[in-house]
């Protein structure tokens, strides 16, 4: 399984500001994803981070709010822009290896609190 490092592990931010979360994988992976886990809710897919092109966003998530970069096969960033208290959540990076029909692995998550 891949080793996934997320930074920061937690942060407290002021409303109206932006936070960029980094995800580094120890090996090249085919697919990278960003999820959100709100208290009492299911893990929800925000977007698929595509290497060298624009991310693919799920319904309810937009690029202006959650810009994503993936410059290579081992690294991605998620930015939470113009934050409000409703953005307080855990954000998780996830990867799938070369075989498409395989399990997804997750990073430790970034716990974001917006005040």
């Amino acid at each position: 399984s891949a080793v996934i490092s997320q930074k920061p592990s937690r942060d407290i931010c002021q409303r109206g500001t932006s936070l960029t979360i980094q995800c580094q994988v120890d090996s090249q992976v085919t697919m990278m994803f960003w999820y959100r886990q709100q208290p009492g809710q299911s893990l929800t897919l925000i977007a698929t981070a595509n290497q060298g092109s624009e991310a693919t966003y799920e319904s309810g998530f937009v690029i202006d709010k959650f810009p994503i970069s993936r410059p290579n096969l081992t690294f991605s960033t998620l930015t939470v822009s113009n934050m409000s208290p409703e953005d307080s959540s855990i954000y998780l990076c996830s990867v799938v290896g070369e075989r498409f029909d395989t399990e997804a692995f997750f990073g430790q998550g970034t716990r974001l609190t917006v005040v």
Partner: protein
Amino acid sequence: EDQVTQSPEALRLQEGESSSLNCSYTVSGLRGLFWYRQDPGKGPEFLFTLYSAGEEKEKERLKATLTKKESFLHITAPKPEDSATYLCAERSGGSNYKLTFGKGTLLTVNP
């Protein structure tokens, strides 16, 4: 819309008291039913993938089974270290890789 429902929301067991967690899914053309364990402050840890009805997989005290509409995670003689939130996710058909998660079952095993 794909939907995954887990029950119960919370389960409290005594050490050694076996039980099962349920995961109901609605997707047609299932391309995988996944079980994860999540400890507080951690990301989900992969446990099992099941692909077809009748399939079973085991790991230590855990056994996962799959029917056409449900999956069960059986916990035999649990220990306190099995306490965690157990998440179920389905992967639907199509070219995209997308997991739809349930809300999870919070399992507490008392010594």
